[in-house]
């Protein structure tokens, strides 16, 4: 009786178990989505990180072929380090959102796939594809004439002003300073002092290492300069009249007019001081727009970065890249995800949420976006300034080459050295760093 029971049990349970196993295999087969890794940084943690995870979730729900695992990898620099480490370990992420001026480093080490490769499969030409993106963005995404990245979020420096302070000082808040002369005039009127101590500055700029060069490049461009050779990775223009002029202007703003503090203020400090009314103007990224919109307890306005001989700003931001060293299936999945994420609709919604501008022109033709732009005049100013935007400095060993001029600016700002002293030194150090590249790539007689 007992043994019969056991047999009965087996005869019943066995088929059930078999059915369950078969079902499980079947189910997992049908949802065997290609799993790919996506690394992304954000400049502002918290809300942007959550929004990105939300978009990825939406994509994963929308289709069954690809499952994207999105990993927040910290700052732009940290994301570069983590991606490089993953490549070296032989397990690159499929996709990463990468700072636009680091793209060529991945190309030099042959770690990313040119976008042409995917465009060919979908029978698009590169020029057709690029024509929808703002012209200022093309240079940073292209290396030696080949497209390697798709711009995702972009920004330029922009001038923020405290409209209440302007009115109080007898200035017109609807007309922020347009050029350097007007900036000095307005700045002088906006300063407040208690005895020797300045309680309110006219203007503040971010001066810490990874931000100072970008804003300064804008001033060099305004002064008619180039800052670096956009067509060749081995040249920077530090020891030039235009760069000297821009640095002298910084020096005058601080040491002659007292409009800016003689201090290495970081971007957090600049925005905090702006919100606290301790500075009437600041120049920060357009990526800070949403943050200002939320936190300013007063009326504010925005304007172009003041010009000297022309308007000019560098474009910053990050682009999508697809790595080599992944399977063919993963690569197809990566392209599918990237195409979806960089479609006009997604770029538009990310732009509205973050404050970055959308890299595609067609994003702005969508009704939601038109409505948003009509409501937010500041975002429209940022977009207008784009016509004067050029590429972000990007050279052989970008960060190392940027450091000498960053040090130079900091030395002048703090009053340790003069423009004449620091400029030749910065150029000499940069040239030293660029030597190996020039030896390998440039035709120089006698070397």
């Amino acid at each position, binding site marked *: 009786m007992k043994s019969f029971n056991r047999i009965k049990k087996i005869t019943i349970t066995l088929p059930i178990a078999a059915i369950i196993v078969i079902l499980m295999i079947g189910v997992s087969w049908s949802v065997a989505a290609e799993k790919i890794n996506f690394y992304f940084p954000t400049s502002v943690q918290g809300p942007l990180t959550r929004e990105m995870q939300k978009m990825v979730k939406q994509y994963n729900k929308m289709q069954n072929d690809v499952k994207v695992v999105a990993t927040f990898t910290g700052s732009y*620099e940290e994301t*570069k*380090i983590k991606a*490089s480490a993953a490549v070296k370990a032989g397990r690159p992420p499929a996709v990463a959102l990468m700072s636009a001026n680091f793209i060529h*480093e991945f190309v*030099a*080490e042959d770690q990313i796939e040119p976008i042409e490769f995917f465009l060919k499969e979908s029978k698009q030409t590169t020029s057709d594809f690029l024509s929808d993106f703002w012209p200022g963005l093309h240079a940073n995404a292209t290396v030696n004439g080949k497209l390697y990245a798709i711009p995702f979020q972009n920004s330029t420096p922009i001038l923020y002003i405290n409209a209440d302070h302007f009115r109080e000082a007898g200035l017109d808040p609807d007309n922020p300073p347009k050029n350097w002369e007007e900036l000095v005039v307005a700045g002088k009127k906006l300063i407040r002092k208690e005895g020797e*101590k300045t309680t309110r500055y006219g203007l503040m700029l971010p*001066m*810490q*290492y*990874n931000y100072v060069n970008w804003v300064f490049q804008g001033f060099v461009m305004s002064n008619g300069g180039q800052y670096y050779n956009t067509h060749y990775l081995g040249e920077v223009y530090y020891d030039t009249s235009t760069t000297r002029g821009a640095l002298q202007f910084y020096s005058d703003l601080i040491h002659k007019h007292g409009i800016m*503090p003689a*201090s*290495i*203020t*970081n971007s*957090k*400090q600049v925005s*905090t*001081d702006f919100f*606290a009314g*301790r500075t009437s103007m600041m120049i920060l990224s357009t990526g800070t727009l949403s943050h200002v919109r939320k936190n300013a307890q007063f009326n504010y306005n925005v304007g172009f970065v003041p010009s000297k001989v022309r308007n000019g700003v560098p474009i910053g931001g990050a682009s999508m890249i697809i790595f080599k060293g992944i399977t063919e299936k993963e690569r197809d999945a990566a392209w599918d995800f990237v195409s979806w994420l960089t479609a006009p609709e997604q770029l538009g919604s990310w732009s509205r949420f973050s404050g970055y501008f959308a890299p595609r022109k067609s994003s702005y033709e969508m009704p939601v976006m038109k409505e948003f732009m009509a409501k937010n005049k500041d975002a429209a100013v940022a977009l207008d300034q784009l016509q004067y935007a050029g590429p972000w400095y990007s050279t*052989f*060993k970008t*960060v*190392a080459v940027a*450091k000498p001029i*960053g*040090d130079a600016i*900091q*030395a002048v700002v*703090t009053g*340790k050295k003069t423009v004449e002293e620091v400029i030749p030194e910065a150029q000499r150090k940069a040239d030293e760093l660029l030597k*190996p*590249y020039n030896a*390998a790539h440039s035709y120089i007689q006698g070397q």
Partner: protein
Amino acid sequence: MMVDACHLWLAMRKVKYMADNVTARGKKRLLKPFYNAGYIKAWLYLAPALLFLILFTYYPMVQVLWDSFFLKEYGAEKKLFVAFDNYRRLFADEDFITAVKNNLIYAIGTVIPSIVIGFGFALSLTQSSRFKNCIRSLLFFPTLVPLVAAAALWIFIYFPGIGLLDYYLAKLGIQSTDWLGDPDIALYSLMILTIWKNAGFYMLFFIAGLQGIGEEYYEAASLEGAGWWQKLRYVTLPLLAPTSAFVFVIALIHVFTHVDHVIVMTLGGPMGSTNLVLYYIYQNAHEFNDLAKATTATVLSVMVLLAISFFSIRTMERGIHYES
């Protein structure tokens, strides 16, 4: 890492001592030391730890040393043997020299004050009472905060004008200071943070050390008519020597291996004034694409750390003899 190596070395010495004792108890030393039973047992005990140390500590050290003689120019395909050229480039780099100088100032300016303060805290808080326990926990609290978090907090303390520090200094009539933005002050601001963070940690070791000193020593000293200072000088300090040596090593190693606050607060700026050697290595390896220089600087700092460790193990051993 260095501390592990020290422990291992100490353990090996101890094992040898034990092994010698074991054989001495037997009638004769018949076998060579390496083959005797005590020795084999000792090596067996050591094996697991040794295996991991070799895999994760000694092998990478050798590899780094080897790599420091090669240069793979960024973007180039081949690695070239360059002998000591990386060392020449390193010493020609003004940023490296600045980082070394900064690190020396930082070492002297944080190790001594935090040990002295930690010792002072310990002296006044050795005897347990509810109140003293409470103060102890308060003083130990900064140790519990990760350095990254502490640095993020101190950014707001150091905020010029509206930060906590300037806010209270202003009440005393002191003008606002640019704690992190002035190249002459920034390094000292980081040092204050470090002292705040570490003094409580060292206090804990000193309290443990002080409680290990028998009451009879002090009674004897009192009978001899020793005053407070004499007791401190001739009883407490000598008997505390092993603890002090240990704390000193820990503190020195801290100075070379913790740079989270540099990354969070200053990025080595303004003008390289807060750059420390480890951050310099990090920058060269990951931001400047000069792995060879980073490797070479690593070799040098490992040598310095090894020298510190072995030098201080000697003093620690002397201390142990004193105790027994």
